[in-house]
């Protein structure tokens, strides 16, 4: 389902679907808009009637003015109340709709295949969930409020004017297209220049990121002048476009004011002339016309503003819907759950590739019995995570089967398969929350004793105790824990659930040696007697593994144990020699 190219109308229709639970508020909004707009229009009529009672010295009819003034106050008050009511309802309507939209966008992220998350830049997804939906919210708010009142005001004004005096109304109606032409011309000019400006601003930001972010390199090579020259070139371009963009957008106000002035003058002249003819309009009616003339172009400007805003809201909505429409992981075909896992894993004739034109794994066969350790080795970036992706069913095999305890993993529920594995990856994952919440992530009902026991087993009890609030300290990915400490917490997280099978990624280059020893220690404590797949960097781990998968450039090139692979004298032997023998 690709709705990317769908027109504005179908996007609107889908947005309206999200407002459905709040139809009552929508109806109230419309009622509020109509009543308040009519009240705003009726007020000048009453003022005009009152002025007609104030003709000249000694010729003022207070008897008639009094009820008019009371009526005016009542109309104004009622209009204000309905206006507030409308504002209140649109706000609830918009906020609720947007909340639902945001939640469904986020929930989608929990059900899309991992492939989607891996291949879409995260910044883009985040901007859909945050910025795009915010733009939709602004657009809806403006749209509901000003579009309704604007339309009602324009129609109402025309009706009122026609009912008072058709001839003068004609003047207003004739000048109206001018206002529309001016507004749309300016809008077109602006949007072109704004696009250019936005593009240049993006370039300036990118250049600044490049040079300021790598300022230390710039300094090391004494390239400050070069940097300033490149920046200034772009800066001047931005200036030229900026002046234009700024000027065009600044045209709107004076131009519409001018058109407004023309309408005002036209009504003044023709109204006054008309008043001279017998049976013409009264002075009060003229005053009423004048205030309409003053207000008449305002809804036009507002509507053109709202349309621009709605257009960008629709563009955002399209992006959000594209996210919501992306297809889910193939749903579990059976609700059979894996229970009481022994840890016998079998891969049979497995083929896999991320993209059809680049074959990665071809005819992989591997049989792992309960408790065996499998080491996955190879140079950095050789695709060791691919195997993990398949085992955990983050990705599905193209052909062939993977079985756990004899059951093909495509025939059991994903959650039961995944809960069977404990996984510690090199990229640690700490979410914003307390240490306790982070450790008990996989077992929310864990007792304090269990949490502390897991922390102790993972060697993190001592540093947790040194944190400001111990186990209740709020931590996050960026909260100042070292990479090693985060890794230990992730191990504790797995320790507490004690799953029957393990997937581990051995320590990284950025961990200091003592912590590394601790992690090593914690790993071996965990793997005892459990089927383990280990992305290995350490020779000792590799040597002791029951089976070694050697990978290079994304593919599995050799399988065997340490001794047999060395004898074979292939890629593994070369790797081993380059790593541990010095020329």
């Amino acid at each position, binding site marked *: 389902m690709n709705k990317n190219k769908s027109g504005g109308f179908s996007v609107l229709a889908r947005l309206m679907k999200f407002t459905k639970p709040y139809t009552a508020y929508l109806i109230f909004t419309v009622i509020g808009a109509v009543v308040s707009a009519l009240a705003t229009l009726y007020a000048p009529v009453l003022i005009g009637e009152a*002025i007609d009672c104030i003709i000249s010295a000694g010729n003022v009819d207070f008897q008639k003015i009094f009820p008019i003034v009371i009526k005016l106050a009542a109309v104004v008050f009622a209009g204000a109340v309905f206006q*507030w009511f409308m504002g209140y309802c649109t706000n609830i309507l918009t906020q609720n709709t947007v909340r639902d939209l945001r939640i469904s966008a986020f929930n989608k992220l929990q059900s899309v295949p991992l492939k989607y998350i891996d291949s879409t830049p995260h910044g883009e997804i985040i901007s859909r969930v945050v910025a795009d939906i915010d733009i939709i919210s602004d657009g809806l708010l403006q749209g509901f409020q000003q579009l309704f009142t604007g339309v009602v005001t324009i129609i109402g004004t025309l009706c009122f004017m026609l009912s008072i005096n058709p001839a003068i109304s004609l003047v207003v109606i004739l000048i109206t297209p001018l206002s529309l032409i001016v507004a749309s011309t300016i809008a077109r000019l602006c949007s072109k220049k704004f696009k250019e400006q936005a593009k240049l601003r993006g370039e300036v930001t990118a250049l600044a990121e490049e040079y300021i972010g790598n300022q230390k390199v710039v*300094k090391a090579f004494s390239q400050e002048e070069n940097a300033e020259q490149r920046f200034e070139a772009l800066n001047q371009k931005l200036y030229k476009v900026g002046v234009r963009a*700024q000027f065009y957008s600044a045209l709107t106000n004076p131009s519409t004011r001018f058109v407004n002035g023309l309408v005002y*003058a036209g009504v003044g002249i023709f109204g006054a002339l008309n008043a001279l003819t017998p049976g013409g309009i009264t002075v009060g009616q003229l005053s009423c016309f004048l205030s309409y003339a*003053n207000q008449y172009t305002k809804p036009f400007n507002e509507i053109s503003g709202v349309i621009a805003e709605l257009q960008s809201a629709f563009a955002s909505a399209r992006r959000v819907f594209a996210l919501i429409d992306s297809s889910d992981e193939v749903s579990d075909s059976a609700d059979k759950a894996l229970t009481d896992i022994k840890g016998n894993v079998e891969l049979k004739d497995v083929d896999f590739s991320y993209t059809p034109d680049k074959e990665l794994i071809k005819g992989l066969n591997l049989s792992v019995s309960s408790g065996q350790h499998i080491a996955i080795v190879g140079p*950095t970036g050789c695709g060791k995570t691919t195997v993990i992706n398949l085992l955990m069913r983050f990705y599905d095999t193209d052909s062939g089967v993977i079985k756990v305890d004899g059951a093909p993993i495509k025939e059991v529920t994903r959650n039961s398969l995944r*809960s069977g594995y404990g996984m510690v990856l090199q990229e640690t994952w700490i979410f914003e929350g307390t240490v306790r919440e982070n450790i008990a992530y996989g077992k929310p009902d864990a007792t304090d004793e269990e949490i502390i026991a897991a922390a102790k087993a993972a060697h993190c009890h001592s540093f947790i105790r040194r944190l400001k609030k111990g186990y209740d300290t709020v931590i996050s990915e960026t909260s100042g824990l*070292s990479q090693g400490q985060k890794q230990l917490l992730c191990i504790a997280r797995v320790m507490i659930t004690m799953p029957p099978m393990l997937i581990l990624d051995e320590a990284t280059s950025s961990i200091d040696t003592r912590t590394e020893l601790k992690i090593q220690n914690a790993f071996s404590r965990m793997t005892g007697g459990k089927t383990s797949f280990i992305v290995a960097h350490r020779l000792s781990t590799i040597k002791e593994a029951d089976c070694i998968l050697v990978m290079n450039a994304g593919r599995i090139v050799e399988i065997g144990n340490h001794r047999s692979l060395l004898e074979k004298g292939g890629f593994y032997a070369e790797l081993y020699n380059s790593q541990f023998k010095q020329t």
Partner: protein
Amino acid sequence: MFKLARFLKKYRLQVIFGPIFKLTEAIFELIVPLVMADIIDKGISSSDEGFIYRAGALIVVLGVCGLAFALICQYMASVASQGFGTELRRELFSHIDSLSHSELDEFGTASLITRLTSDVNQLQVAVAMLIRLVVRAPFLVLGATVMAFTIDFKLSLIFVAAIPLIAVTLWFVTAKTIPFYKNIQKKLDKTARITQENLIGARAVRAFAKQEHEEERFRENADDINRIAVRAGKISALLNPVTSIILNLAVVAIIWLGGYSVDAGELSQGQIIALVNYMNQILLALIVVSNLVVIFTKSAASAARINEVLEALPSVKENTNAEPHMAENAPMIEFDGVYFSYHNNGENALENIDFTANKGETIGIIGGTGSGKSTLINLIPRFYDVSGGAIKVKGVDVRDYPLKRLRSMIGVVPQKAALFSGTVRDNMKWGKSDITDSEIENALKTAQAYDFIKELPDGLDSMILQEGKNLSGGQKQRLTIARALCRKPEILILDDSASALDYATDLKLRTAIKENCGDMTVIIISQRANTVKAADKIIVLNDGAAVGIGTHKELLASCGEYCEICLSQFSAEEIEKELQDE
């Protein structure tokens, strides 16, 4: 905010004349209701058609002139505001360029970029508004009031009562809602954070089957936003109705009281209409004023952030006139009791470091994260100044070199492989601006980068995208090494810069450097004992102190920390075997 006014100097003309033109337009706008009152009072009551035409034409002329003046003002505002922003950006960028590492660390890249982009944009808006509206809007309020007074003193008192009421309403609503919007912004940041956590941790969330838990966490935050936004909406929905009530009640008062004045012959019908018009104009102008207040509050914050950067002074002060007298027989690099602390808070990042490196020697530096390895090498090109002791290059204190001279002797390969958008050749030229292609090729060969560059369709002219996005981590690292080699430095510093290379390439690289750059003094930082093993001298750092200095063999025998590192990377038997082999 006023400190930044100097950037407007070039645009003095626009800043002075822009508002004057705008003011003229505003005066015209104020005259229009008076002319209209005349049409009603003189034209209609004395049935003077000619007068109506003349007065009508006058309104149109006033409109045309007003438009012309307004356009001139808008243009001036555009030139001045964009010009101001351009000058400010240039100054800010080159000031950031002049800062030393300590200041850059303190501000942080993200924050500097925000200041250079959105803060400057915010100020541009403020300058445009300053020229366009700051004079106009209050003038309209004041002008309309004064005009009202010229018509009738008593009725004008209604204006005096209504204006503060409207102003207070505007102020109340703005002041009440701003904290709500700030709060919403914070919650939106949290939305972004939760989303990001879930994207990075997608595997972890699914591995623990916690999708529903995460959905719940997100929902709570979305509900929070909803609640705050609805509360803010309740208040801001008050603005229009309340101001409209005040305005219309004022109009009612004008009609009612005005009726008595007309009855007494003090005022005419047309004048009442004019008063009603002025009242409307005041409301519109006051709304503009309240928007201006919001814009200027934001701008003041932006200006403060920009000033903070402009006022920061580089902590490394250059001695541009220095003429260093280098001693040929002095060691290449000499650390003499060096202490260093990042914030001068007494917490030393380096403590009493003492060593020398001679021409052609290779120095290995090893130690855990945060042990001070990168800090140590950052002191040699004087990215930071030592807090105690001295560093000498060729017998001369680094503080006695002009910076450019000092840095031209050193080739640094940073930990994070940073390449710049441009061709491969452009990037290599950073090392030496007049470099020849064959020199570049030699450097590429030594850095083990020649093979993959050769395979690119455009060779040296191949484009590198921003941040080297079109290259792999290992390729980027090899190119940054080549870039440093291009300048044929006397000192080459490799800051853990081969971490993305596989062992075989890493070894080839070290061998090639040894062969081709015999008299270069090389400093290698690494986490891998294997990489530094062959160095002439290895410095083992722990918590900022050198706990061991010597060769691989010496250290294995004498330095406990070094043994521990080696043990964690080789198995004990291998080390034993190695010792026996020698």
